[in-house]
């Protein structure tokens, strides 16, 4: 599928934003200032961006514990996210959610999720809303290879299939669920499962932004046309540990370094668009610079932002009670 210059620049900038966001969090986490569990998306950027840039704010996505990339790809603001991750009142969720629960419903982002397999049922619901209210929207569930073994995910594939929902199930297969390899935990195959529930599956190289983009385009068009759900099985890799603090001793020595050097989705994107003269290095360099500045600013801002007030503990449990 053809992409214009503007879209390409936008895609690059989004991927770079995610990378910079995550690399920076990796450093900041080590200082001990960031509370709780943080799961970084670095390495997987092409997947979130290749899909989400084809969605509007009416289209919904459900994310995972590894949610920063999905948020940023869906257009959620850097500053609100960073503040949230630091537990500040100015965070997107007022500091009550943290990294694992960032959401922005105004952007169609239904939330990161601390429960593995929590998102796919919700996406059936968002897709149902689109179908019943005839909004033309689609709904996308991101889930990991680990989550593909959770009953909630499997039931959702069937429900979307028999209700013919405008839903897309994106299995982000990074080869591990925590320290357990998908070679061990996944019986059969993702494509086989999709077929078993009656939906098509696209096998996608997740290091290749354009491969993701094209497969997503097909799945989205199918969903918008009322032809039902699809699965995307995207193979990719995370560059950091399962969460910050994980020593990743279960991975092969040099595994990540090799992937970073040889298959990195951003480097590959850059090479391809510059070689094809679609964008030039100057465009991309200035995007890099802008991104660095934005993240720098967001971190500084978050560190100095005020904490939630004592009264906030008790608000927002119910709309009315």
């Amino acid at each position, binding site marked *: 599928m053809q992409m214009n210059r503007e879209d390409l620049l936008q895609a690059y900038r989004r991927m770079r934003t995610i990378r910079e966001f995550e690399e920076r969090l990796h450093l900041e986490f080590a200082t001990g200032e960031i509370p709780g569990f943080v799961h970084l998306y670095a390495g997987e950027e092409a997947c979130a961006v290749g899909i989400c840039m084809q969605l509007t704010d009416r289209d919904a996505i*459900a994310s995972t514990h590894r949610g920063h990339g999905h948020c940023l790809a869906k257009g959620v603001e850097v500053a609100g996210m960073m503040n949230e991750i630091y537990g500040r009142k100015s965070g997107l*969720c007022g500091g009550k959610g943290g990294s694992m629960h960032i*959401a922005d419903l105004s952007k169609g982002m239904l939330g990161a999720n601390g*429960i593995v397999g929590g998102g796919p049922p919700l996406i059936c*619901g968002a897709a*149902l809303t689109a179908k019943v209210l005839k909004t033309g929207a689609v709904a996308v569930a991101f889930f990991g290879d680990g989550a593909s073994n959770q009953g909630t995910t499997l*039931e959702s594939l*069937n429900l979307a299939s028999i209700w013919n929902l405008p839903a897309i199930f994106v299995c982000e297969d990074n080869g591990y669920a925590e320290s357990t390899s998908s070679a061990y935990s996944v019986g059969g195959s993702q494509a086989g499962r999709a077929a078993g529930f009656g939906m098509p599956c696209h096998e996608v190289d997740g290091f290749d932004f354009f491969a993701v983009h094209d497969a997503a385009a097909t799945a989205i068009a199918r969903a918008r046309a009322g032809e039902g759900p699809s699965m995307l099985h995207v193979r990719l890799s995370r560059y950091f540990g399962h969460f910050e603090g994980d020593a990743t001793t279960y991975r092969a020595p040099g595994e990540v370094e090799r992937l970073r050097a040889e298959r990195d989705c951003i480097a590959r994107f850059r090479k391809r668009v510059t070689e094809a003269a679609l964008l030039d290095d100057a465009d991309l360099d200035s995007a890099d610079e802008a991104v660095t500045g934005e993240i720098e600013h967001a971190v500084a801002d978050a560190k100095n932002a005020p904490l939630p007030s004592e009264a906030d503990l008790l608000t927002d449990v119910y709309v009315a009670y």
Partner: protein
Amino acid sequence: MSKKSYRAAINEALRQEMRRDPTIVLMGEDIAGGAGAPGEQDAWGGPLGVTKGLLAEFGRERILDTPLSESAFIGAAAGAAATGLRPVAELMFVDFMGVCFDQIFNQAAKFRYMFGGRARTPMVIRTMYGAGLRAASQHSQSLYPIFTHIPGLKVALPSSPYEAKGLLIAAIRDDDPVIFFENKMLYDDEEEVPDEPYAIPFGEANLTREGDHATIVAFGRMVKLANAAADRLEKAGISCNVVDPRTTSPLDTGTILECVEDTGRLVIVDEASPRCNMAADISALVAQEAFGALKAPIQMVCPPHVPVPFAPNLEDLYVPSAERIEAAVRAVMAYKAREAA
């Protein structure tokens, strides 16, 4: 106004609300029935016929029969509620919560708080609870204490047809997730129920009877038994308040505490298992907030700490009875006598 059964009152509430608001959809197993089958469509209206007839008016776009996948469809209700629909999902028996609880208590219940107040999840889960149908231990539980324990959920327990219609309409109009507990032994009960829609506000107890000597707080089906016990006690000169809290979350603590202040004696009747249940919850409330008014130990009338047995004679022993309630009231009254002595 006309006599309606609990079943019919619920059906009418659903129908009237669906007419009013096109974003309301129903989903559940066999809630119409006959999907994809060669015979009658709307063959069941749920296993006890509660949703029967809605399909004809609203069609399969809004009356959604589901596969046997509670996690997926209860979660879908939550996702739909967060994105613009107002779903009413049926969890056929509350005993089945164990296959889908995550979508209720970690997703729907917490959206609002964990997203910093920027989500609304207007969904209702209608579900059937309680013993008495000889359905044994996996189809007879009264698990509302578990849902009451969870911040973010509201829990309603209609005790009669009138209550059922008004509380269900309130539940549907509510912007928070509501778990609506229908007692399976009440479906055929009848009483006068207004034809027009009306909402009974949550968190306002119904003082079904006033008295001077003791207060009985009872939930759901137990309200009927409490009133039967109170009738008998009345004849023996003991007059009771009978409080139906209607919702366990929010709970009308004010009415309960006032009644205890007035009578000084409290009996709580709860069909749920005895540990960490609503009887304990209210007992604790009163022991902390109205201690000075208490003239006798609080008596709890609950089933024993055992699964619900199948054999009818055992099941009848299991469920709190009017006799046991009466005995408990007599016990709190007798305590006074002993003190005086």
